[in-house]
């Protein structure tokens, strides 16, 4: 008897443009299904994990993610997160989660003041999340960033709390996994590339793992274990529940 597929939902705001890539990435994992969740709907359609994809929701007008966070779908996402559901925000999705208060901190303009599309090295700082459990601690990934406002910032008190609570999930690093000059593409505080909430079920990252799931393409496949972690977590949770 084959297991029911793990159901992912990819939210689509007007201006999201990495939604198709997120769905396509998931299609490379057998045993999963992915559907789009329209911003005007309020129904998460029984998905077991939600992805807020990258792009330019509402053109990034006013502030990135500032308008998207008030979409009708977002209340359902907030409730889902409150009940422990897995929510991942990629790039613009991360910005929206931060605007919605589901993740701490803020994302401001890159220090270089220009959009940057570049391969970066990421060090996995903690494998104790449903998004990084399939990686090895300290593993170095090569993933693309492509953003104008990826500069993560947070006040010192919150940062201290986050560090103590192991909420820094990914950091920019060099190929050897060390924090180094030139490794950080946007000036983010403490080279932070991805963070999770205290409950560890909401996660945001600026780089784009959905462009790194096929080894023969330019992006490589270092992003696969991220989705695999989510799939494993959902399956484990379902097993425990049954």
């Amino acid at each position, binding site marked *: 008897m084959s297991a029911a597929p793990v159901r992912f939902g990819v939210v689509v705001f007007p201006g999201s443009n990495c939604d198709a890539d997120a769905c396509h990435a998931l299609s490379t994992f057998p045993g999963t299904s992915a559907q789009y969740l329209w911003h005007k709907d309020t129904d998460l359609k029984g998905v077991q994990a939600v992805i807020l994809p990258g792009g330019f929701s*509402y053109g990034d*007008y006013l502030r990135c993610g500032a308008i998207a966070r*008030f979409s009708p779908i977002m209340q359902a996402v907030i409730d889902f997160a409150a009940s422990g559901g897995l929510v991942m925000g990629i790039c613009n999705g991360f910005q929206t989660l931060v605007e919605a208060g589901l993740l701490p901190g803020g994302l401001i303009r890159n220090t270089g003041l220009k959009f940057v599309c570049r391969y970066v090295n990421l060090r996995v700082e903690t494998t104790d999340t449903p998004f990084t459990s399939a990686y090895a601690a300290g593993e170095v990934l090569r993933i693309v960033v492509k953003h104008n406002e990826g500069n993560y910032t947070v006040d010192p008190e919150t940062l201290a709390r986050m560090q103590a609570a192991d909420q820094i999930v990914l950091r920019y690093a060099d190929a050897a996994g060390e924090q180094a000059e030139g490794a950080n593409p946007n000036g983010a505080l403490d080279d932070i590339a991805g963070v999770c909430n205290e409950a560890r079920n909401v996660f945001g990252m600026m780089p784009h793992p959905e462009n790194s799931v096929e080894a023969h393409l330019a992006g490589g496949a270092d992003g696969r274990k991220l989705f695999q972690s989510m799939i494993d977590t959902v399956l484990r949770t379902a097993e425990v529940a049954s």
Partner: protein
Amino acid sequence: MNVRVYVTPKKGILDPQGAAVERSLPNLGFTGVSGVQIGKIIDLTISADDLTAEAARAQVDDMCRRLLANPIIEDYTFAISEG
């Protein structure tokens, strides 16, 4: 002297940000809102003891025309106060 510069989209030029925000407000329950325009405020201080008010205005105007605003698509006004 304290200077506050207001930079706004030129009349007649498309303001995509303003249009997007104007369309979004009704979704939050605010009806009857129109004419949304998004500009910026630039604050700066000029320290020059012997600068006349007229000279200061000329200087700020020059700054606006050459850098602070893009005269092709933006308008500007400014206010100077002693401080």
